[in-house]
């Protein structure tokens, strides 16, 4: 320890940004009654882990990158950072750094971080920096709403030349900082990470508010088939192609609240899963709801990926939610006591 940077405010300068790179947080809650989308990270669990690893609150503001986007940042006053989500090559001052790990840096030294692309990995990745990004709040939230044009940096994707202020460096993380370079302090256990591999993702669902309007045979078709994520999927919704689904008799819906994970079926019969930037009201039959723990699994599916659905009991959804929270709490303990492994990156 040569100096304490606790309380010092960091900042980052964007030196390159291509594609959909935005600031996101845990969402804008309490304004859906005025028609305002919740928004927030598309893979909420990857975002939460990135934040926890970086020593931030779960819903701190971080950088979200989609698919083939690319980013380079010049960082100052950063004591730790973490990457989570779809893995791509990332370099810190030219040296490769891993995902799903806490990277300790010296807050008194500036460094450059470059995030590359990879066609093969998932769709959304997150960079959390100690202290969290501190854009101006809009309606109680900090995340970028591209359609509304607010939140994050001027309601838009990051551009080269943007400056972003960070919150004060947490004192605890400064104590661990080495003289120079970066160290891996702790890694997320594989149990908390989303399942990787070539298996078809299975998304667990609960019946939606119009589940009973779909005949049993239609529901069985939905649960027995593979659906493919189509290219016209975005932060608002993922469209799926597969067996067509129709309620019987046809339903006219009076606008009704919908949420992240709601599976709606428009009159053409192809289901749409509403994602983070969904409108607050839906006008189509609501077939099912993806359990909150599986939202990130779907979010990470690129166009062309096949998924299948499995109906579960509400208790299963609650157990999954509790298990996640306990896992994250244990991770916190690991970070707090320094019980994680430490090694040169």
């Amino acid at each position, binding site marked *: 320890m040569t100096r304490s940077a606790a309380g010092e405010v960091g900042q980052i300068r964007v030196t390159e940004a291509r594609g959909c790179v935005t600031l996101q947080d845990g969402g804008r809650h309490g304004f859906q009654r005025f028609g305002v989308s919740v928004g927030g990270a598309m893979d909420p669990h990857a975002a939460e882990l990135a934040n926890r690893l970086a020593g931030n609150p779960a819903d701190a503001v971080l950088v979200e990158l989609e698919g083939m986007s690319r980013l380079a940042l010049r960082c100052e006053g950063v004591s730790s950072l973490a990457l989570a989500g779809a893995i791509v090559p990332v370099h810190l001052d030219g040296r490769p750094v891993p995902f799903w790990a806490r990277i300790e840096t010296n807050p008194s030294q500036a460094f450059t971080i470059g995030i590359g692309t990879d066609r093969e990995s998932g769709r959304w990745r997150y960079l959390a920096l100690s202290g969290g990004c501190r854009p101006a709040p*809009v309606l109680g939230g900090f995340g970028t709403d591209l359609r509304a044009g607010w939140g994050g940096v001027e309601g838009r994707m990051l551009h080269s030349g943007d400056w972003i202020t960070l919150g004060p460096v947490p004192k605890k993380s400064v104590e661990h900082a080495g003289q120079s370079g970066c160290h891996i302090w702790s890694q997320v256990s594989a149990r908390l990470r989303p399942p990787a591999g070539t298996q078809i993702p299975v998304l667990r669902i609960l019946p939606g508010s119009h589940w009973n309007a779909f005949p049993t045979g239609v529901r069985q078709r939905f649960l027995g088939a593979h659906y493919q994520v189509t290219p016209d999927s975005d932060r608002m919704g993922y469209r799926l192609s597969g067996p067509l689904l129709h309620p019987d008799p046809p339903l006219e819906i*009076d606008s009704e609240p919908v949420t992240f994970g709601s599976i709606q079926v428009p009159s053409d019969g192809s289901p749409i899963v509403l994602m983070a930037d969904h409108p607050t009201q839906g006008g189509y039959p609501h077939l099912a709801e993806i359990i909150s723990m599986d939202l990130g699994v779907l979010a990470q599916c690129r166009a062309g990926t096949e998924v299948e659905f499995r109906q579960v009991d509400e208790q299963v959804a609650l157990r999954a939610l*509790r298990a996640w929270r306990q896992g994250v709490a244990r991770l916190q303990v690991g970070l707090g006591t320094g019980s994680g492994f430490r090694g040169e990156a």
Partner: protein
Amino acid sequence: MDSEVGVAEAQSLECLPLGECGLLLRWPQEPAPRLSRRIRALGEALDRKPPPGFVEWVPGLRSFAVYFDPTRFSRAAWVETLTSFWENLPENPDLPVRFFEVPVRYGGDDGPDLAEVADRARLDPEHCIALHAGIVYEVLLVGFAPGFPYLAGLPEALAVPRRTTPRLRVAAGSVAIANRLCGIYPRESPGGWSLVGRTDWICFDPGRSPPACFAIGDQVRFHPEKGSR
């Protein structure tokens, strides 16, 4: 009409799941001002006494969603709480409703569907404007897009179904109709309603509190600006 609605309401209020962190109440009757006002009052009652783990409430046209942390207050407890709130609401809650007069430029480029609406109604466009601007609407719901008001009261002669092919781009401020509802698009967006006019009225300002101009129960009248046709 209100007494009939009351009977239907007693028959079945559905409590439906909206994922493990949400609950949807759905009433069996048609959307109507009285129901919407009571839905708003339900939300305001919840704001005054929120159970632990409450996140937010969202009204629908004849529904009401609440989002919550199910590990802090169970679904069963939520159903009981909401039902009890609902049953204890006055029949006609006292809401601070306001009256707005909204200037509109009808027809032409501002309301490209006015002629078609007039054709369907077998009226001339001037008559349609007079009908549209001749009554007081009531806000049933604000939602879909930030500040978008769903207005009840459209005269039956002007009722048109949603357009079969939605427009990819509807100009901000467009005054639009569909079925028996009227709405104002607060910002440029896709939309399937028929466009009869346009206003400069600001429906939403994120810097204001509350950010939406209109609230459920507010009264709105449209005022044709000079040059409308």
